[in-house]
């Protein structure tokens, strides 16, 4: 036991290093392929309200959903999170990104529709201190903590600290919408901006929320019997609700952008409101989630299955050409006299010591239409000057360049296996009457198969995930799935899709490895010795 502990201590630094810098990032990256927290975190109230809505009706959702959306979106806009949500939903339905962006800009205007008449009815509503006094009280600590948590989830920031404000229990009961909007404002002002809540004018959304509360007849009658702080101003407002806008938030949103009235948009939002989603994976195999279930994407948008197939087929072609080209070289290495073999070995290893980028760029020089290979072929008269071979920016270019780059990974395992085949086997075969070819094919070759297996696994797995070379010489026909993954990581920033594509690639490779183990047996693979 002590011995084991000691041994464990010795490997611990490496183990921790690998786990922290390699395994954890990979797992968290893979987790992104199903993670969808951004929707429920950014518009939590909307998501809950939307769950009541029946998308198949073709009708836009109830006013309640729009009210929640307004409250959620307003604070999200303050935290600049609404554009992220827009980008996320835009993966599923294009147009949502700009919808969220433009709507984000007009949220203040919507609030002012209520703010202006409210301030006209009672000037007290202009005062931040009046609002503070009206909303403050005791008993609302739990309510404050709930809003604090939601705010933290939405903004991805630490919201802990003293707010200097506790909503009154009575006002939470009386004005539920207003209490939410004001508490959000208070949290943001105190903790994010570091201001004193009482001195700040509330957000426009607070006025909008008061407008929401005043549409409820029960609230109006309750206000009339209310006698807490700001009761008179509230009663004045309740008496003059005819001066407030006579439409709801659905109309207000639809007015800003008619898309908000479309059931389609809401169906998409509802579909992607759970915190886990199969959407990225479906996307990776050219399918999509619709309210009617999982369907194939339209023909002209199907790219990933083709790309996966192409990656597999091209990796197979590359592996096969590596075997064909590498086998004789490995044989020479294993059978030449020591000195000659060392020189040959250096030639094989030379590419390893050259930067990958340099080698690939060199292929670019060789393969292009005005490049070395075409020039020589034209000069020799094999090819007309007019129709030079297209060797680059297509699959041919990728296969040629990658075969060259991955060749050492085939030669080295082959060599180390061949090195262990004693020459006496072939001698024995010949002494028994076999011709050179029979001796090779019946005796030598079967014994070198484990080397071919090892080399093939190595080359195939490297090829299937290759990125740089296809990117440089592949053009559009010769790119691999990894290039698409890189595109989603660095350009489109759709990390979820990149993670899903990556996970599928990983599973495919593991699956092939498993098949190989079943068919050939991994024990038969030798990397040497």
């Amino acid at each position, binding site marked *: 036991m002590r011995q084991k502990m000691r041994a464990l201590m010795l490997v611990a630094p490496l183990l921790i290093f690998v786990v922290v810098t390699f395994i954890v990032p990979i797992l968290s990256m893979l987790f992104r392929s199903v993670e969808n927290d951004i929707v429920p975190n950014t518009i939590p109230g909307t998501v809950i309200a939307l769950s009541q809505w029946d998308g198949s009706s073709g009708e836009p959702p109830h006013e309640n959903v729009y009210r929640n959306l307004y409250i959620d979106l307003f604070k999200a806009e303050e935290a600049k999170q609404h554009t992220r949500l827009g980008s996320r939903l835009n993966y599923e339905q294009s147009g949502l990104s700009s919808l969220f962006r433009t709507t984000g800009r007009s949220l203040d205007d919507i609030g002012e529709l209520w703010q202006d008449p409210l301030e006209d009815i009672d000037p007290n509503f202009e005062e931040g201190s009046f609002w503070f006094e009206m909303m403050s009280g005791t008993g609302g600590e739990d309510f404050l903590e709930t809003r604090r948590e939601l705010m933290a989830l939405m903004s991805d920031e630490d919201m802990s600290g003293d707010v200097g404000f506790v909503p009154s229990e009575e006002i939470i009961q009386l004005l539920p919408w207003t209490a939410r909007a004001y508490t959000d404002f208070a949290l943001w002002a105190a903790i994010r901006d570091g201001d004193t809540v009482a001195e700040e004018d509330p957000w426009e959304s607070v006025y909008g929320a008061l407008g929401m509360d005043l549409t409820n007849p029960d609230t109006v009658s309750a206000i009339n019997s209310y006698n807490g702080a700001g009761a008179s101003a509230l009663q004045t407002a309740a008496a003059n609700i005819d001066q407030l806008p006579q439409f709801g938030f659905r109309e207000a949103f639809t007015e800003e952008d008619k898309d908000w009235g479309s059931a389609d948009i809401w169906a998409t939002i509802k579909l992607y409101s759970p915190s886990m989603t199969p959407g990225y994976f479906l996307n990776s195999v050219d399918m999509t989630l619709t309210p009617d279930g999982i369907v194939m994407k339209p023909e002209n948008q199907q790219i990933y299955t083709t790309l996966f197939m192409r990656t597999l087929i091209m990796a197979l072609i590359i592996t096969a050409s590596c075997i064909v080209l590498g086998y004789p070289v490995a044989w020479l290495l294993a059978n030449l006299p020591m000195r000659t073999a060392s020189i040959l070995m250096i030639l094989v290893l030379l590419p390893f010591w050259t930067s990958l980028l340099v080698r690939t760029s060199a292929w670019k020089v060789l393969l292009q239409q005005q490049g070395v290979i075409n020039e020589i072929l034209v000069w020799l008269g094999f090819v007309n000057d007019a129709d030079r071979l297209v060797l680059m920016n297509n699959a041919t270019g990728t296969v040629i360049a990658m075969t060259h780059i991955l060749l050492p990974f085939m030669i080295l395992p082959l060599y180390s296996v061949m090195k262990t085949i004693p020459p*006496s086997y072939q*001698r*024995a075969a*010949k*002494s*028994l009457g076999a011709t050179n070819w029979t001796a090779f094919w019946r005796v030598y070759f079967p*014994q070198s198969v484990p080397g071919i297996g090892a080399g093939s696994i190595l080359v195939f797995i490297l090829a299937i995930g290759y990125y740089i070379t296809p990117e440089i010489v592949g053009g559009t026909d010769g790119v691999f799935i990894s290039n698409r993954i890189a595109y989603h990581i660095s350009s489109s920033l759709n990390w979820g899709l990149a993670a899903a594509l990556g996970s599928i690639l990983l599973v495919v490779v593991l699956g092939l490895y498993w098949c190989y183990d079943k068919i050939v047996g991994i024990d038969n693979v030798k990397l040497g010795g």
Partner: protein
Amino acid sequence: MADGASNEAFVEFERVQKSYDGETLVVKDLNLTMPKGEFLTMLGPSGSGKTTCLMMLAGFETATHGDIRLGGVSINDIPPHKRGIGMVFQNYALFPHMTIAENLAFPLEVRKLGKAEQEEKVKRALDMVEMGSFGGRRPAQLSGGQQQRVALARALVFEPELVLMDEPLGALDKQLREKMQFEITHLAHQLGITTVYVTHDQTEALTMSDRVAVFDDGRIQQLAPPDKLYEQPENSFVAQFIGENNTLEGVIKEIKGNTCVVQLDGGEIIDAVPVNVSQVGERTRVSIRPERVEYNRDRLHADAHTLKAEVLEFIYMGDIFRTRLRVAGNDEFIIKTRNAPDQVRLKPGQEIEIGWLAEDCRALDAS
């Protein structure tokens, strides 16, 4: 020589030379003639050229110079697979990816024999080496001795007239080796095949062969039947290499027909047979086998020369006694005596007088 062996040359090496690098000769002027049915062993230290000779005969090396003939036909230009020579390798070289039966069928298959005939011959060959029930196994599942038998069966299954064996018993333990030595010789004589056997183990060479070729420095030092090789070595190398041997250095004093008198460096006089010395005054190294040294004065000729000796050590070895003496300044002089009821057991410190029959003591070259 085995029964049925004719004296007609079957395998011939004529003035064969071999060099790998074009400068040093590994085999220098090899001449050898073997009749059909003979069991010939090439014996020598490593690097003496014996394996190279075997490889040239098998066709895996080409002679730089000279002619190798098989059945009167020069085989210099015939590739190994057309020579029809069976071969057993040092590490057996059984194909690991084939079963035992497949290994044995291989030479028949490449000769395009019918399936039924193949099976029958494989079975017969396996039965011959008592491995009949192992046909379905892989080489790795067999012990060293079993692999050895299979390798032998494979070399014989296509009925070659000549079989080459390259230290085939080197990897076996002593007991198994002795058993296999007997089996191989028995089989070779029974089938009447001509065998060239390479080894560096002199016991193996002596017990198995019709004739032994002792190799050193790229040449055959002596080619003779085992008894002659042991009792009448023709030069110092052979005398030293085969069996245990006492040597004394001196100068030829007198040569009379087939005996001579040698004066040792310490001045003592002994009798010997001149082998490859011819002149009086020439330096010589005399060689005498430990079991031919006599210390019982009664058993020696009356006029035989004797030497004084001091017993240094007495070793009891069961069947024999081994006594180490100091003779003429040589502390490593060994005598061996049979453990007979009347045998005297010498004691360390004892002074004795030793002598021998002149024909047992051979005056050889001093090199």
